[in-house]
């Protein structure tokens, strides 16, 4: 399966990863190779096999509906490049 350069650029943009023209070329081959390998895996008949979600017999852990966290706005924004009055401040985004 061949991934062309346009697709590489689209995937990069969706993932917000900046790539150079050279990198794009290299990634074409790399991603195509990965998908070829996946194509190969798809040859195995897995119709009767449940998708594996865990390697040990464990169920989804659940939590009681109790407030145990929060009330630490200053800590939450501590690492933000910009903050004001405990809001995160980001470049303007308007619809």
């Amino acid at each position: 399966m061949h991934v062309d350069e346009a697709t590489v650029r689209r995937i990069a943009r969706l993932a917000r990863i900046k790539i150079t023209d050279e990198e794009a070329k290299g990634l074409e081959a790399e991603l195509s190779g990965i998908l070829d390998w996946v194509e190969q895996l798809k040859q195995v008949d897995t119709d009767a096999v449940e998708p594996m979600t865990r390697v040990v017999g464990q169920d989804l852990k659940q939590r009681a509906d109790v407030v145990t966290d929060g009330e630490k706005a200053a800590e939450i924004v501590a690492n933000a490049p910009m903050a004001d009055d405990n809001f995160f401040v980001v470049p303007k985004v308007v619809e």
Partner: protein
Amino acid sequence: MHDKVAAPSNGNLIPGATGDWEVVIGMEVHAQVNSRAKLFSGAATAFGAEPNAHVSLVDAAMPGMLPVINEECVAQAVRTGLGLKAQINLKSIFDRKNYFYPDLPQGYQISQYKQPIVGEGEIEIEVDGTAKTVGIERLHLEQDAGKSIHDQHPEYSYVDLNRSGVALMEIVSKPDLRSAKEAQAYVTKLRTILRYLGTCDGDMEKGNLRADVNVSVRKPGAPLGTRCEIKNVNSIRFIGQAVDVEARRQIDIIEDGGKIDQETRLFDPGKGETRSMRSKEEAHDYRYFPDPDLLPLEFTEDYVAHLRHDLPELPDEKKARFMAEYGLASYDASVLVAERERADYFQAVAKGRDGKTAANWVINELLGRLNKEGHDIADSPVSADQVGGIVDLIANGTISGKLAKDLFEIVWSEGGDPAEIVETRGMKQVTDTGAIETAVDAVIAANPDKVEQVKAKPSMIGWFVGQVMKASGGKANPQAVNEILKAKLGLE
């Protein structure tokens, strides 16, 4: 040759230059789950906190934080599914829906894609007296995003994550709705059911219930047209307007030879138009995949049965019971069950009394007055006991219907026990025929000329009734007055 157009299935067709059009509507409603803590963290969900006060490190998507699901949110989703008569899936999967936005710190929303917690169900709606069943496609659990505020600074947006991670139920209908009114009836009924269940407060003003409306148009009987999704229409009234405006826009484009682009649009209530939100288009490739931080959500039939057992009586069942038990008309029963508090109030008034009279008083006097004053039934100045007391006084003949309304006004503005008020203010209806006879005799003696006239013109008896009532201060039983007058004047 005749143009054969399929017979209209209902009266909802919209006329256009090339004939009638049918509008097809499907709804996606986001309902905030009633819970104390968030879906995957222990931060509070309460509305109106200081910026970022209800945020844990999980909600802020700090590295290494892991989601742990809130069991109550799961129970609420199952309860809602049961209330929608829907299939409950004993196993469901959480997926990541990937997109970038400043109010989504994870870079993905945890949602459910291929295997939601609730499958197909249905809601019964009623429009202009006609009942209709609307299919539910699915209900899934997902996280809400944070909130961006754009008016704090000319160059920057401010982000508050208090809502980030709050549990939402996305409830998707089938494209079964055919008019603005049906769309409104659907959301109204859904909200009523959610409130009965206690799984969402349905407060649209606070954004706790938000609707995306999918609209397309077609010639009756034709295949479905291309749809547009109108985002975040935040009141029932706007839902109706948005559907009408969008249907008209699409019909005009098609009739002018154009075609509809599938896109996301925004309803502007001020301008009464929908407009394209092109910026959202590119982001539509969400690249869903199962969230590796979360195992499948699994529970047993017993768990579901336990929740089903504890469900409250829902509006449709309550309406049927009110009609059977109290002999109410369908319309009155619908009005009373529209809100759970209203139904409870009515039941308290009707207990041990005539159901129809109770319904009459709750709907016409109480709800009418509450509406006028902008009160909810929860903060009604008149209690169910007080309305019941008034109904009792009418039933046992102590006061007339007219005086009862005056009494209601006194109770509304001053409070107090109706029976006591009647006693202390001398509002009792006089049924004592002796007292009425005395009053009648006095009126007859004082008006010999009128007595002559009424013999020729029996309809003049009304004047006599009026005089006697006036003399009694409105307290005489009008029927008794009428009978005694007739006898004394020798009429009939």
